[in-house]
């Protein structure tokens, strides 16, 4: 069991689940209503990606988007946040359409965060998307995962302790 997990209990149709699988990894899972080929297209075509990536409730827009989804290729996303722009960029490590995509997030200092996304066909013609972020450190996760409240550093220690207790059960 993992205390650091959240599931949408009110929507049984397409649940979005978030789980912190370790102090520097976070996994988001959701079933999308379409086959992997189309989800892949929406994830790797700039004009399409630009239309869904930024939640409308956030005060920011994706003003420019370059995606060259090939191994050795890269991407660059330019966000406008209240008049100032921010660039997020990286390169593709794995490109296996329409099932698996891995890329780096290089905008931070030091070691990059690695994102791996898998698109798995379900029996009813939909796609189970598993989005996995591996941060270089627990601190980087807390800063990078878009949280609005800073998490105390001791969470990581408490998590470890709870994991130990869990194993001992």
């Amino acid at each position, binding site marked *: *069991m993992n*205390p*650091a*997990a*959240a*599931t*949408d*209990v009110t929507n049984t149709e*397409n649940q*979005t*689940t*978030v789980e*912190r699988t370790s102090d520097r990894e*976070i996994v*988001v899972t*959701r079933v*999308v*209503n*379409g086959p992997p080929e*189309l*989800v892949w*297209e*929406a*994830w790797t075509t700039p004009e*399409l990606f630009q*239309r*869904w*990536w*930024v*939640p*409308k*409730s*956030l005060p920011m827009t994706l003003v420019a988007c370059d995606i060259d989804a090939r191994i050795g290729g890269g991407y660059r996303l330019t966000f406008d946040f209240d008049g100032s722009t921010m660039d997020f960029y990286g390169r593709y490590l794995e490109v296996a359409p329409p099932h698996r995509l891995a890329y780096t997030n290089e905008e931070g200092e030091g070691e990059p965060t690695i994102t791996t996304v898998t698109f798995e066909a379900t029996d009813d013609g939909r796609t189970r*998307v598993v*989005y996995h972020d591996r941060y270089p450190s627990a601190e980087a996760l807390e800063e990078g*995962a*878009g*949280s*609005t*409240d800073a*998490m*105390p550093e*001791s*969470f990581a220690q*408490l998590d470890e*302790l*709870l994991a130990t*207790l*869990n194993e001992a059960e």
Partner: protein
Amino acid sequence: MVQYSGQVDTTFGAIADATRRAVLERLARSDASISELADAFDMTLTGMRKHVRVLEDAGLVTTEKIGRVRTCRLGPSQLADEARWIEEYRQLWNERFSQLDAVVEELKRKEKTDEPGRGD
């Protein structure tokens, strides 16, 4: 070095139960009364009161009685903060995926109209 092991045992006991974890996730969304929680989890008031008391003892939840209604909210514990944080992150992705669904729906419709009769 670990000075809070007593508290951690209490915390661990509190979150070892699936219903109590779900109650925390529910409270990460908004405060709720005991009866609202009992309804949401299809439990008796007495059963829910017990769960809430365990969470309260662990510092994960605080309750306040106003009139006849006892309102529960996430407490000062670090794990309660984490539940809140994870829920915010989940909401971000939920919205993002809903927008992706809309784009994929459109691609599906396009595929049908652009390539009538082509089966692949």
